[in-house]
């Protein structure tokens, strides 16, 4: 007994040491890992909510979810996917990769980095806890339009507001850290126009974050004061305007959707040249196009609001500005194709996901162009056509981008090659499932099915069933992805320093797995690449 008790003490202190290590770490690689695991965990939670939604929509009638619960699922699915999955996923990639790609020893502000991560688990615990509260979780859609979220919001709305504030603080701190790191810690010789595109897109994303997250904080605060402190920002009865909510929200919201996609552009721009074994076509125009998209994202918010009774002049302005986004986006797509053109391509899993990203994102871009035309938007607005559109840009865009990046850099992070055969199975099932889930939504939308409805008329039944079957398959592919990642962490073929034959850049000059501390002295740039990649 005595011996046993004596053994237990070091055991317990080892556990504490382990917890303390992850709680107090200031290492960019460990924090990157934390972000990625948080994102992955929330991906399963928000994905499970999507399963509830698709299960309920499998057939007409009410089967699994009462209307109020359904609305909670729709809301939480959107909020968590946007703020809990895509954003932390990209921040995790930034944490791991930006110091490695610019030859920095760590992020510029390591303690701030720790703090900005550790806010998030608490923010999402707070948000998720609202599911178990009296009156249920927020049920007004992730866009929380007033007065549904103000006068009519459930009591848990206040927890949602506080959660959003915490996420906003985390994002702004993370963005500051990324900007400071990129501006100050680049290795000598790496001028701004020699930075890898992933770094460029994240720099621009970080500026977008700093500009719009305070706007979101402002609008949730106005909702809070409307709810509890007698203000009437969004209530006509007190001289306010519910439509002003939408203006402020979408002034945040539209740059936000570019926050969710620009790092994906950067990832595709890293991966495609590697596997085409050819330099990225039009590096300069890629940078300018990204900056142009970021600028335009601030002057198109009104296209979310064409049915709110906007004056003609405003409708025309927002229509033209929105159509203009197609130009820099087109430049990017053309550049990717030109990079592939006359290259010498192989199709490992990261390349497959990157090509899937380009094609399916472009389809989402096409429907975005169609949505820009105001007269047609009167028919598309608030239907499943819109749901199809933004899932095409976000799933094969942001999520495929993150998966491509994971396969691409996982050997560098873990020191092991992932299972190529399983990776390919993952890609092909995901592509089939994504299209099976989201393509029929174009048809139900055009036929007149509004979004965010728990039950629908019989004419929409067939395509909804197809979507639900696709969604089930899509859910299963994520389990496979989890398995592949864990398998790679635990072992596998040893990865070389360069990992990929055609890979260029500083991150491929450090050993695999990347040591705890890298680039303690600034590396030479441009680097001399070893010839050991696959």
């Amino acid at each position, binding site marked *: 007994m005595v011996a046993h008790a004596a053994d237990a003490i070091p055991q317990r202190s080892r556990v504490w040491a382990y917890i303390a290590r992850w709680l107090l770490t200031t290492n960019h690689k460990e924090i990157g890992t934390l972000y990625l695991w948080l994102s992955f965990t929330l991906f399963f939670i928000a994905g499970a909510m999507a399963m509830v939604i698709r299960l309920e929509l499998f057939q007409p009638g009410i089967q699994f979810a009462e209307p109020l619960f359904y609305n909670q699922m729709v809301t939480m699915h959107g909020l968590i996917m946007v703020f809990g999955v895509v954003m932390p996923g990209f921040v995790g990639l930034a944490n791991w990769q930006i110091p490695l790609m610019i030859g920095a020893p760590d992020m510029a502000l390591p303690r701030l980095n720790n703090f900005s991560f550790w806010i998030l688990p608490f923010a999402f615990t707070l948000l998720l806890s609202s599911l178990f509260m009296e009156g*249920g979780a927020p049920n007004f859609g992730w866009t929380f339009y007033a007065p*549904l979220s103000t006068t009519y919001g459930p009591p848990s709305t206040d927890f949602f507001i506080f959660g959003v504030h915490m996420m906003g603080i985390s994002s702004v701190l993370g963005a500051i850290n990324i900007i400071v790191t990129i501006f100050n810690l680049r290795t000598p010789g790496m001028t701004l126009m020699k930075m890898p595109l992933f770094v460029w897109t994240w720099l621009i994303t970080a500026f977008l974050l700093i500009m719009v997250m305070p706007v979101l904080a402002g609008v949730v605060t106005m909702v809070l004061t409307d709810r509890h402190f007698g203000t009437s920002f969004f209530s006509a009865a007190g001289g306010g305007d519910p*439509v002003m909510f939408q203006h402020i929200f979408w002034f945040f919201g539209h740059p936000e959707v570019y926050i969710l996609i620009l790092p994906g552009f950067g990832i595709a721009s890293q991966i495609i040249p590697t596997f085409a074994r*050819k330099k990225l076509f039009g590096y300069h125009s890629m940078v300018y196009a990204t900056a142009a998209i970021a600028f335009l994202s601030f002057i198109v918010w009104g296209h979310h609001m064409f049915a709110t009774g906007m004056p003609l002049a405003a409708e025309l302005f927002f229509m033209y500005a929105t159509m203009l986004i197609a130009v820099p986006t087109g430049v990017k797509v053309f550049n990717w194709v030109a990079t592939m053109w006359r290259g010498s391509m192989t199709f490992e899993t990261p390349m497959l996901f990157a090509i899937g990203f380009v094609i399916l994102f472009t389809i989402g871009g096409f429907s975005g162009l169609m949505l820009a035309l105001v007269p047609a938007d009167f028919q598309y607005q608030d239907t499943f056509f819109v749901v199809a559109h933004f899932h095409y840009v976000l799933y094969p865009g942001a999520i495929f981008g993150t998966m491509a990046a994971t396969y691409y850099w996982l050997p560098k992070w873990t020191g092991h090659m992932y299972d190529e055969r399983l990776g390919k199975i993952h890609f092909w099932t995901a592509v089939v499932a994504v299209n099976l889930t989201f393509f029929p939504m174009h048809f139900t939308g055009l036929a007149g099915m509004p979004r965010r409805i728990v039950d629908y008329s019989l004419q929409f039944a*067939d395509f909804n069933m197809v979507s639900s079957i696709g969604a089930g398959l899509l859910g299963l592919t994520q389990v496979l992805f989890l398995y592949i990642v864990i398998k790679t962490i635990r072992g596998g073929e040893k990865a070389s320093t360069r990992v990929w034959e055609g890979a260029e850049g500083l991150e491929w000059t450090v050993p695999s797995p990347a040591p705890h501390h890298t680039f303690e002295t600034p590396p030479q740039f441009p680097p001399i690449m070893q010839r050991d990649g696959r």
Partner: protein
Amino acid sequence: MTSIASTLKSGLVFLVLWGTSRAAFAAALDLREGVTDMSQRIQALHHMSLWVCVVMGVIVFGAMFYSIFAHRRSKHPQPADFHESTAVEVVWTVIPVLILVGMAVPATTTLIEIEDNSDADLTVLITASQWKWHYQYLEADIGYYSKLATPTEQIENRAPKGENYLLEVDNPLVLPTNKKIRFLTASNDVIHSWWVPDFAVKQDAIPGFINEAWTRIPTPGLYRGQCAELCGKDHAYMPVVVEVRPEAEFDKWIAGQRLARELASGQAVADRNKTWTMAELMQIGEQVFLTHCATCHEPNGVGQGTTYPALAGGKIPTGPLEAHIDRVMNGKAGTEMQAWAPQLSDRELAAVITYERNAWGNATADLIQPRTIYAAR
């Protein structure tokens, strides 16, 4: 299982339709053509932008797939090393701009017409509330509520679903053919959106503000749509049904509505003068309750959590009568409990309050007469 089979079957049907009838195929996959000039022009705009996208897609993805095929390592082992060309970049910036201008021109002319709300022949004020529409004919001074008519049994899968499941209402909006009809939209609570795809009219109904839209419908018929903006729990159960009649029939219908209003006010006087029995009021009250109240408070009055309080044994239905009458007639500000005084007759209000005070073990034995309600108005 049968519906999975039916999905497969309709998949086959699509393939067959592809070969036989383009119209039927388009009906399943395409934007609705609708019946108005505007809806058809919008469909043409939709087709134009869709084809631009398809052509661009074929060119871009065609180049990409050719490259994937011809420039893979096994066929093309030595990569080229070009990586910029100002001329090419300028070309693929300028050409999209020209295409966009070509798309913007018809979109702009159509939009300018859509926004021309002048010279209407008839104006209907559409006031939304959770979860029904109120239609007010401003010139004729007639108004009524329109709400979902699909029985709960169908929604809860206890009865087979009808042909117009969730797209049927008790009182459709009646409109004449070939008149320029102006819609004014407003809301009593949250934002709703009034949408009829066949007219290509979708306009948000915003509390405190009035929006405008218009249509001109050439063909009589029944047209169905839905609320398009998330408006709370029963957002899915807020259909729009419009019945379009030839002008002469429409005028007759207006006259009939006016007559009905006179009769109703005569009925109201008769209701007030009569002294009703408990059995009569309980019977009417149960009907009113199931139609209007049960969606939130549940058919057996148990409610749903704190959002929709229980009425069985509830504080209000078993408390002072005056407070109960006040709550039912005037609602509770800031909640989904609406003011029912403008929506129900004295008889219906008296009956439903009587019912709530005496059903599900609420044994107050209070009997409320329509004249009490009349006095409280």
